[in-house]
């Protein structure tokens, strides 16, 4: 006996922890990981619903999301490296050229 809302609530909690992670941390790597966490929380919701509705589309969707997450992580990390190379720091607040 599975109570779907419980799983969704767990996913939401994970999602919000991811949000907190994005807002609080000043380390770019952790920022990325928090975003990845939020992504996974979303996947969890998808799977919970596909289970609730007995549809496999949720799974297909999660599969695609994972590939996108992978691509995004790769490019993101490449950027981190270039950023680090220019500024020798990974503190995100240093990169504020857009400041008025």
């Amino acid at each position: 006996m599975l109570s779907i809302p419980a799983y969704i609530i767990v996913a939401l909690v994970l999602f919000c922890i991811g949000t907190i992670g994005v807002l609080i941390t000043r380390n770019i790597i952790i920022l990325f990981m928090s975003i990845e966490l939020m992504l996974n929380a979303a996947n969890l919701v998808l799977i919970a619903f596909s289970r609730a509705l007995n549809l496999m589309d949720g799974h297909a969707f999660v599969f695609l999301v994972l590939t996108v997450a992978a691509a995004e992580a790769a490019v993101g990390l490449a950027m981190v490296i270039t950023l680090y190379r220019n500024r020798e720091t990974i503190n995100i607040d240093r990169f504020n050229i857009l400041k008025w």
Partner: protein
Amino acid sequence: MSEYLFLVPLLPFIGFLINGLLLGRLPRPVVSFIACASVGLSFVIALLLFFDLKAMPADMRLIEQTLFTWIPAGSFHANIAYMLDPLSAVMILVVSGVGFVIHIYSVGYMHHDPCFGRYFTYMNLFTFAMLTLVLADNFLLMFVGWEGVGLCSYLLIGFWYEKKSAADAGKKAFIVNRIGDFGFLIGMFIIFWQIGSLDFQTVMAEAPHVFIAGGGLITAVCLLLFMGATGKSAQIPLFVWLPDAMEGPTPVSALIHAATMVTAGVYMIVRTNVLYMMAPDAMLVVAIIGVATAFFAATIGLAQNDIKRVLAYSTVSQLGYMFLACGVGAFTAGIFHLMTHAFFKALLFLGAGSVIHGMSNEQDMRYMGGLKKYMPITFWTMLIATLAISGIPGFSGFFSKDEILWKSFSSQFGHPVFWVLGVITAGLTAFYMFRLINMTFFGKGRMDDKTRKHLHEAPRSMTVPLIVLAVLSVVGGYVGLPHVFFGATNYFEHWMAPVLSGGQAASHALASGGGDTGTELGLMAASVLLVLIAIYFAYLLYNKSPERATSLREKLSGMHKMIVNKYYVDEIYGATIVRPLVYFSLFLWKVVDVVVIDGFINGLAGAYSDVSGYLRTSQTGRVRSYATVFVVGVVIVTAYFLFG
């Protein structure tokens, strides 16, 4: 002959155009010939028209001529139309006659002046404007002449524009005239508003039906028109410009500020006598201001040292007499005095001109004296004029002034107080006139010897006009002999009667006032006696023992200082009107315009940029703060959907 009426004003205008357009190119003799010829010719035509008019039966004496419609605006039709009736006949004779004489005189007087052409251009323009004023057949055309003469007096007073005082005097004259014109304009509007037309004929005919006699509106109209008259003829509130107008060349003072322009106010009141007869309290105001101005100006005249200023105040005073005459209903006497005054006052001014000419532009009487032997003709002609103005029997001044005094005593609107003040003023007039004669012509010369060497009699072209005017100022009086003298018929009164026929009520009132000749003779004797005493005093103080005059002056020093400084009238006007007006406009400009309105707008712009400045700080450049804003947005949106 009547179709040449329009030529009378037109000729000086043509003279003006020729001299004006070819200003620098005409040789002097040609310029002076054109100027004098045009005025002379118009005088001849005026004379012919006068005889035409005389030939007509008494009550139909009217020549009319309409040239073209000037402003056709719906119900309002103003056209350029000239009208000649006995009143304007007298006026054009005086204007063109005296004008012609003065033109001849000024040829000599202005001989050495560089702007010779410009002077005669303005003089011709003035004559045109004055003739238009006098010949106009409706209020609007009269107003055209009215402002035209105002303009010419501005130009001629400020003729030597390099002198700041002259330019100021010109400006002052124009603005004070404009204040008068303000009243005149509003009077005209009320007339048009009520009667619907501005032509004299219709206005005089309709007035009794439209206005209620003695009512508020008619009094307002008369007072407003009188305000215009005071502006132009320099009466109490608005007389300040005339003494300063002496900055202009002397012939100008003679023509404009003695003989013609200043009398325009009197002419206007006589022209609209029908209206005035319907508003007795307006007449009272006119009389009061007239006699007050006469007395007030005479007192100031006592202590003036500049020869022309004495004459200026004497003009103001004599004008006061004329307004007194109009005020008490004796319009004929007013016009008669206007005519005689034109003659002897022009003569006085021209005489003063030749004195100044001889004294190489020295105007202060304290440096004159003993000129009798150097300038015999000027002396004798001025003596005649002085006798005339003081009202010595046998001279024109006596007849006209005495007529006014008698009417002010006896007429229906008159009052003994007017007579008393009038007689005292006559005395004062005699005193300051003879003071002038004694100080300039008698006693020992007080001028430095450089000017003494230059002393010479004026050239023929200046003395002939003096003689002509002297003859006129003697003969002029006999035209209007009061019938109290061995029953002589008063030609002038008969001549003027039709013009006043409009106010029938008025004319018979005048006649009844005739009353017993005994009192008239008695009053006449009293005034002559007072005049003789004044003459003796003047002789005593300024001829026999000048030191007594100085001692008298110390005793009355307070009063004397008051008079010398003209009761500080100019300073009072300056402080109460001019300076506050300037400060108020400065306030308006600096505060209202710049601070309030511009401040508001620039403030708006400033506020706008401040707000945008504040909003700009939200762009911190830090990615995390943007992320926070994202999340806040999401929260708000979900909240809206949840609870909205």
